[in-house]
């Protein structure tokens, strides 16, 4: 077990450049269905409460559509679909996370509810891709356990590259 945690550790260090092993890393946690997920906070530029989204015919099924945030055209991704989870219609609590991608495009991630910022020490992060579904493991950095909680840490880069 100790070996696994160590391996995960080095993997994380490689996947998230600039992070310091000793320091705390910040993630934004949110809910999809009953589970809690999180993405690197530095990637998120803004959280918006569901602006009107225009569907785009002929687009991949996990794209909800496009919306405009103060003049910026954003493609909104249904995170549930992209992760292969059950799809459900948005609710009052649904939010769109505007995330900066490597290509410079700003992508909106539709989530069921935004929770809070999680600070994780490297010792609180482990890689356990194998316990999760196959669809998911591609997009997972690891699992965080802040104070007994269970948060799936998602790799944004792999999720928005289509």
């Amino acid at each position, binding site marked *: 077990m100790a070996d696994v945690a160590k391996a995960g550790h080095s993997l994380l260090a490689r996947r998230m450049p600039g992070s310091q092993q000793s320091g705390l890393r910040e993630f934004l946690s949110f809910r999809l269905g009953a589970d809690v997920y999180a993405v690197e906070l530095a990637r998120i530029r803004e959280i918006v409460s569901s*602006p*009107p989204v*225009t*569907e*785009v*015919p*002929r*687009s*991949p*099924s996990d*794209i909800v559509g*496009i*919306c*405009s945030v*103060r*003049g910026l*055209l*954003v*493609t909104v*991704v249904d995170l549930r679909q992209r992760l292969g989870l059950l799809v459900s219609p948005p609710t009052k609590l649904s939010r769109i996370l505007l995330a900066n991608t490597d*290509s410079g*495009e*700003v*992508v909106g991630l539709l989530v069921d509810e935004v929770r809070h910022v999680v600070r994780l020490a490297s010792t609180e992060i482990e890689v356990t891709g194998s316990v999760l579904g196959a669809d998911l493991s591609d997009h997972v950095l690891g699992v965080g356990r802040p104070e007994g909680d269970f948060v799936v840490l998602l790799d944004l880069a792999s999720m*928005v590259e*289509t």
Partner: protein
Amino acid sequence: MAEGVDKAREEFFSEAQELVESLSRNLLALDAAVRAKTEDPGLVNEAFRAVHTLKGLAGLFGAKRVGTLSHRLEDVLDSLRLGRLPLTESVLDLLFRAVELYGDALSVERARSDDPLPAIDALIDEFAHLGSEGPSGTSPLAKFELDQAMLAVLTEYEEHRLKTCVQQGLLLYRVRVDFALATIDRALEDIKARAKTHGEVITYLPTGASTGIDTIELDLLLASASSLAELEASLASNGAIIEPIRLRRVEATSARSAPSLGPSAPPTPSPPAPLPAHSLSERAPDAVEPNAAAHRAIAQTVRVDIRKLDALMNVVGELAIVKNALARMSERIRAEGGRQLGSELHSIQRSFERRLGEMQNGILEVRMVPLGQVFDRLARVVRQIGREMGKDIRLVITGAETEIDKLIVEELSDPLMHVVRNAIDHGIEVAEERLRVGKPLAGTIALNAFQKGNHVVIEVEDDGHGIDETALVDRAVVLGMVDPEEVAQLARSEIFNLVFLPGLSTKKEASDYSGRGVGMDVVKTNISKLGGVIDLHSEAEIGTKLTITLPVTLAIVSALLVRIVGRVFAMPLTSVAEAITLDEKQVRMLDGREVMTLRGVTLPICRLGRIFGLAPLPGVVPPKRQYVVVATLGSRRLGFAVDDLQGQQDIVIKPLGKSLSGVRGFSGATELGDQRVALVLDPAALIEEMLRGSETARERRLGYG
């Protein structure tokens, strides 16, 4: 800091590009002059000046290859303006090649690549072989009683001009003027300008004998065909004293009457050089006529990155949304009883709307550039290809002043170049053939441009032998692009459109320029990317005409808002011909497609709701009656069936994000105000897709529907 350097480098490249373009224009004018057997020393001078500036700039930015090329080119141009080298077609060929090489050299430098450019060395080699022939025989100046002191201080260039003028039989005059030092700049320009109308001012020199301490007396040496009386009438108001320079007596000789002016002879120094301290003749050889007006014109223009204009246009788009919000607000206030306040707000909003409109037009205007920019480049290509293929081509350009969006102009160059190459290569016959069919020896290529509503039309016409329709169809059948059984049903326009299919070429042997079957399809793709269409018409033995229709700008478009299954889409008005109500009884099936008859012509119908696979929205009742929006692009027409028409609006099209790059049929999206976003339909792509009736459309429908 680094950013500043990059910016300066960017400016260097755009300035260099402009210089090369102006060089190219000068060469074209020179070419015309050579053909017309006339001479324009100003043109060689301007070319020389452009290259000289380019050399300086290249040195400043370490652009070695550009520098080397400029240096050698400068030498050649210098020899030309000094008359050491006669200006011939073959010299012009080399000069034009240099212009092409500048393009390569600049892009290599821009990429900061160290790749060698052997073509430059090859050209420089040929420059070296040009050799220089000096004028021989006795100097024509010998017959004039010219002041030796004056002759001695002429620069080599001035001496060359003087001789040329004398050889042309012009008379020489000495114009003596006493200038006040305070106003000499303007007064000198003034008298030079007046004198120029009579001939050429060879030089001007101080006489050293001024009447006062704050004046200076100059002698202008003028070559002119006018008589003394004419000159006096014109120049007397400037206080000029004009004396003709007399011809020598026949036997007159002088030790210096025929100064040796061999190819490499430096200006002969003369022992008694009576130069006052503030000599005006001490000018660098490259300092040609200072052109004050041109300098002012340059100072009043700025170079702007087009992205900055895009950013401004976006702000205008945002403001339009604010404007709509204001309008709604004033409506609401009026509805809630605040009539007075509501009306005031309404009038403020109206004036805001007007100013915004002016601003929008202003920004659009800034983006516009004349098509002449790209036509100049084409003229060069025409000349080059014509010469290399041994065809005499006359290029006739009309409407070069027609303006179009800068971004479109940039993208037009390649497609147009290809079209013109095709016309010369495939269209224009060889000389013997032209003689045989009784056409003028020189083939004509006409480039016409004009504005037509929101479109700019560019026509490329040649008077060649036209397209062999039978050969074209045969080839298409052989390649399996056309079903042999369908051949008989093809309309003429459909036959000509075969030209745009990938891989089709009727010329049996590919040449260097065209005919390899790649090209016209690429041309068509590039034109449609700009929202344009291309049509071709040809008459056997008479010629071929290609018509390209483009939107004036891509930045902002008027759009028709339509509703389809509860969703709003925008359709650019540039492609909308009309909208009519759809009579379902008129719709018939033809060849697996829905069609209706509109004023006697069959119109294919495209049900956008169906091809987009739009699911009905809850609570939205299908309308009792539908509309057909007729879109035309070039000669193609298609009716889009929509549920409702919602009016017209000016929109700024924003491109869809990378994650949607695979989605076809939309050119982008736009904000409608009240935060809603509407997709902008791409009629060109949809028409193409529908009329092709290909499997892909059906597959897509199944895949996403």
